[in-house]
């Protein structure tokens, strides 16, 4: 009988290491709630993206276009709003529409044209990034101060961004666990053949998952626009949101082969990454060395989950 690593134990161990390291380094003031909350606040954009990515991975697909979409969303939002509070709603709607279209195309490429999801979404990323860079080369437009509340405001002491993340995560979790669509997501990813035999329209499910994934990325772009005050074509790439969203989903227990995993596990993965970030900052570790560790941790987490499978992997 093999012991499966799960998001719970991983999170617990990480938290233990985090707390332990802080205490050992004699900087216990970092354990105050304000700091912890601020740690999580920095991870909002990643968290939003990762929730969407979880859905794509659950249907045995993947979405590598999220970083480009985040940049495009941020730019689109700032350009449409252009500092005018009356344009906030149109700006948000425009961004959501963009997200929906991108997700639709991704989903159709994967489900109908049967293009390898890695290639389909990478190609999409190139198209979006290219299109964006052709139009804009620097920060463009501006976000009105009212909209910046999304980053700077707070609800009952909790940063607004975090509230947004938790709300989106809760909605996604409820969707996955309570709705028929959510059940279809697990079926389509876990055993598409059995799902089809049972009458589930797996093609539609895959498309739907991709649309939701892209919408989450679009939301992340909106949040970043609020945070930065404007949008630029490189913010998605800078944050490495594509690869990191996959990484935190996998660390959180969502299996790349599909059919297994969940949103809360992904958030646990985000928390783990946020703790690593914060720990390295507190300990004064080189920001670059942190990156090395990140790479190693991602591989180690997947290896831990994969330990014990007999299947040959490519």
């Amino acid at each position, binding site marked *: 009988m093999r012991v499966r690593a799960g998001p719970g134990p991983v999170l617990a161990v990480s938290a233990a290491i985090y707390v332990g390291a802080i205490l050992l380094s004699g900087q216990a003031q970092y354990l105050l709630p304000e700091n912890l909350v601020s740690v999580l606040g920095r991870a909002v954009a990643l968290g939003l993206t990762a929730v969407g990515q979880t859905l794509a991975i659950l249907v045995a697909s*993947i979405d590598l276009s999220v970083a480009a979409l985040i940049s495009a969303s941020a730019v689109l939002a700032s350009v449409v709003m252009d500092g005018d509070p009356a344009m906030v709603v149109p700006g948000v709607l425009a961004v959501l529409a963009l997200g929906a279209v991108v997700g639709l195309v991704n989903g159709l*490429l994967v489900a109908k*044209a*049967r*293009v*390898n999801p*890695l*290639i*389909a979404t*990478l*190609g*999409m*990323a*190139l*198209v*979006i*990034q*290219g*299109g*964006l*860079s*052709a139009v804009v080369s620097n920060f463009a437009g501006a976000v009105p101060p009212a909209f910046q509340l999304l980053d700077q405001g707070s609800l009952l002491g909790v940063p607004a961004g975090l509230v947004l993340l938790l709300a989106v995560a809760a909605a996604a979790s409820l969707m996955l666990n309570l709705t028929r669509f959510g059940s279809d997501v697990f079926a389509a990813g876990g055993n598409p053949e059995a799902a089809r035999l049972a009458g589930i329209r797996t093609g539609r499910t895959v498309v739907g998952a991709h649309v939701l994934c892209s919408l989450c990325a679009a939301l992340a772009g909106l949040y970043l626009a609020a945070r930065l005050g404007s949008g630029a074509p490189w913010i998605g790439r800078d944050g*490495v949101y594509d*690869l990191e969203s*996959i*990484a935190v989903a*996998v660390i959180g227990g969502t299996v*790349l082969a599909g059919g297994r995993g969940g949103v809360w596990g992904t958030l646990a993965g985000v928390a783990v990454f946020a703790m690593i970030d914060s720990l390295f900052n507190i300990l004064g570790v*080189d*920001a*670059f*060395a*942190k*990156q*090395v*560790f*990140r*790479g*190693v941790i*991602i*591989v180690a987490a*997947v*290896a831990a989950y*994969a*330990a014990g*499978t007999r*299947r*040959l*992997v*490519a």
Partner: protein
Amino acid sequence: MTLAAPRPFAARLRGVNPVWAVLLLLLLAILLLNPAFAEPQGFMNFLRRAAPLCLLAAGQVFVLTSGGFDLSQGAVVTFTVVGASMLLDNDEGATGWVILVLLAAGAGVGAVNGLVVSVLRVPSLIATLGTMIALGGVVMTWSGGAPRGYLTDGFRAFGRFMWRDVPVVGLLPAALLVLVAGGALLWWLLHATTYGRLLHAVGDNPEAARLAGVPVARVRVIAFVASALSAVVAGVLLGGFSGVSLDVGTGAELQAITAAVLGGTLLLGGRGLVGGAVGGALTLSALFTLLNLLGLPQPVREVAQGLILILAVAFAVRRRGT
């Protein structure tokens, strides 16, 4: 449900790979827009600049044939360029051993990739992704975010040097020789050795290969090493005419995969074509040149590449009949 038979390998070889036809068309288009392209200066320059991608694509073919992806090639290229710059620090005499050290490091990266996939059973997507991130971090840490040092002339000669007054062709870039030598070596390894046949077997049906006695893990590791080594060589060439920067290799692996798929290599394993990959790389480079000539800015290039990638794979899926 029966399996549709893939296009016979032999028939494809006997027939000409369509990528060359596409390349020819693009070259003609370039020629029309810029007659100077036919001059040695124009044409040889084109080949010189395309050489790194050709090598990258040829190396990527090995991993693709085994059924996986190598996303760490770009990071290896960056590592090579930045690492060389810092190790050499304009010491001519060090050129030789620095290149050897970089090759050894590249082989190490490839071996790690291969072992993580074969022994730890981590899908290559994640394994090479992890390597890419970690290696990027190593480069950052080592260079402190701002690459120092200087590439020696000897090092840059590989990418930059051109023999003049050569009979027939006029100019002959050293990079072209490197490409021909490296390409020939990779072609030989994949198409003319026992190893190449075993690699195809592993990518085609890893379980059947295992049951037939093939050392699957060893075969995979070698494929990743080949891919990483070709990235090192590509990095040496790139260092010759590109500047030293932290994103010299960014996106390289994606271009390599696009080129390989354009040239007929199948994703998810079973058939690889080194010659086709080189043709695909030349085709991509020709396309970018054409776009430049048409005055279209760099971002359009990205869009074009994205569309080509998607179309090439979609088309390949159609052809395969799955």
